[in-house]
């Protein structure tokens, strides 16, 4: 524990800017993954333990596409699109078979998928770490805000994630499709009885969730290294985000993801050994005081 360092950082604008930026990066990437988890849970009541795999595969697909086309934009789109398709296949081929089974059965299937694709990644891309490197367009000098360094790519990444948060939020609350999704979250039988194809709806929800996770993986690739186990750690964190924010709430996911990002950003200075511990304490406190999460509806 190093509270002096934390105090020193909080009083230096440069340090505050740097840590806030890195916290925002962590938070925004986490939000993209957690949004999918929470959306899928909200509508299908499925806890998708394989969501980290989507994130990982998205990163690897982007890595390959960047190598072939040399266009980072294409790479991100390819990562997102590939994972949207993968999400639908996963839902149709496996998850749809266990909708009415035990939660543990769903967990078992997801775990199997995680195991399989960790090895598929090892076979296709090799077990070693890959560094995508910063795309050429972003290899420019960083901005300085109040003396803190902000690489331009970070700004773009935060911007894209924020844009997605807004589109997702507005899309769910204002469009007809969003209303259908929210209705299906509350009463799928009724939605089905009103003549809406819920099978298609569920597949679309999985496509959106998978696409977001794939995009997060692609966006994370330049700032983090790619490795076969990378899905594991983000999965746990995105669960924490969903629990803290409230299962099924997109706004909750955003707030909780940013909260965790900030704890990570500043926790590494104050409690370098115990940052994870802080996050778990936060999760336990939320579960005890407000089990439905910050923005969840009490059942």
């Amino acid at each position: 524990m190093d509270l002096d360092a934390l105090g020193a950082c909080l009083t230096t604008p440069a340090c505050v800017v740097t840590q806030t930026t890195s916290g925002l990066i962590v938070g925004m990437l986490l939000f993209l993954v957690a949004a999918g988890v929470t959306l899928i849970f909200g509508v299908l009541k499925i806890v998708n333990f394989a969501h980290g795999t989507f994130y990982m595969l998205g990163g690897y697909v982007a890595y390959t596409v960047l190598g072939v086309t040399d266009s980072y934009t294409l790479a991100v789109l390819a990562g997102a699109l590939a994972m949207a398709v993968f999400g639908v296949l996963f839902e149709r081929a496996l998850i749809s078979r266990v909708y009415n089974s035990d939660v543990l059965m769903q967990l078992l299937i997801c775990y199997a998928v995680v195991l399989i694709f960790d090895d598929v990644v090892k076979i296709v891309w090799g077990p070693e770490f890959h560094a995508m490197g910063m795309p050429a367009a972003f290899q420019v000098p960083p901005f300085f805000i109040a003396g803190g360094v902000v690489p331009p790519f970070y700004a773009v990444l935060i911007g894209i994630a924020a844009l997605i948060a807004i589109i997702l939020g507005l899309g769910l609350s204002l469009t007809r499709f969003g209303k259908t999704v929210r209705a299906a979250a509350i009463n799928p039988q009724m939605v089905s009885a009103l003549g809406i194809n819920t099978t298609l709806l569920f597949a679309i929800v999985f496509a959106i969730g998978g696409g977001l996770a794939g995009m997060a993986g692609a966006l994370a690739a330049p700032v983090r290294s790619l490795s076969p186990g990378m899905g594991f750690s983000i999965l746990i964190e995105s669960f924490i985000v969903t629990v803290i924010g409230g299962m099924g709430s997109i706004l909750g996911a955003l707030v909780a993801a940013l909260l965790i990002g900030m704890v990570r950003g500043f926790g590494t200075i104050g409690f370098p050994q115990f940052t994870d511990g802080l996050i778990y304490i936060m999760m336990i406190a939320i579960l005890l005081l407000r089990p439905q999460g910050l923005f969840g509806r009490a059942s």
Partner: protein
Amino acid sequence: MSKHPAWRDTIIAVVVLIIVLVIPLLHRSPAFEDFIIRLSAMALFATSLNLLVGNTGMVSFGHGMFYGFGAYAFALTMQMTELSLPVAAVIAVVATAFAALCVGAICVRLSTEYFAFITLAVQMLFYSIIISWQSLTGGDQGLRGGIPRREFFGFELESQLHLYQFCAIVGVLGLLALRHISVSPFGQTLRMIRDNEDRASFLGIVLWRARLSAFTIAGAFAGLGGVLAALFVSGAYPEFADWPNSGQAIFAVMLGGIHSFLGPVVGGMILLALNDLVTRYTEYHGLILGIVILIFAVGLRRGVLDFIKLIRLGRAR
């Protein structure tokens, strides 16, 4: 059902124990002996989890915490004191039971999903404490320096044969004790809570107290499994308390069958055997294991023993 199920269970346990103890006298196979040692730890771990999952309907994602707690408590007691091995083991199990009581006191009032998540969170907190408290636990390197294996009752655990016998005896006795708990009136009460907690409550059962008791007992037996694991690796590692380890126990329970007492043992056997077998032929054991799990999960949709039970019931009708 025989008239004296308790006797029948005891006889089965004794017969199995005798068979397991006789095998190395006829034929020594280090691989087999290692397998049984690891299985005894895994069986206690998974079966104690099933007391919660299958019997009581409490899905805990954090059971590995007690496995790890038992291992660390035992290893530290052996390293820091001169106490004899059985005393240290008892201390470790009692300490784990107490830890489970404390964790359970916080967790058991939460409903199903939230219970799963909070047990996961508490486990991860425990894991990060192990990692960061380096002076006591050795951090992410694990507790090294070996566990002194002091001789007791003629058991010399340095020898693999004695370790094998010790683990087999503890494992079988532990399972027998769990079996007794699961068929006792208390076990029946837990099943009633699982099936209909409102009705159980109307009958005067204090839900949280029964759940807390189950949680504490399960924690204690997971701790015993951890003791055996610590003996096997002669140390304790943070991975024992990490979430993939809790996952292993859940998969053992699911593969074997949650509604059969021996399900988790069978599931543990399948997992360990697959692991050993597959790693021998390919480095991609996750791929094979994943495919096998998928076949079980999508094909049977229940554990192996539950599936067999279903088929037998179907024939009986």
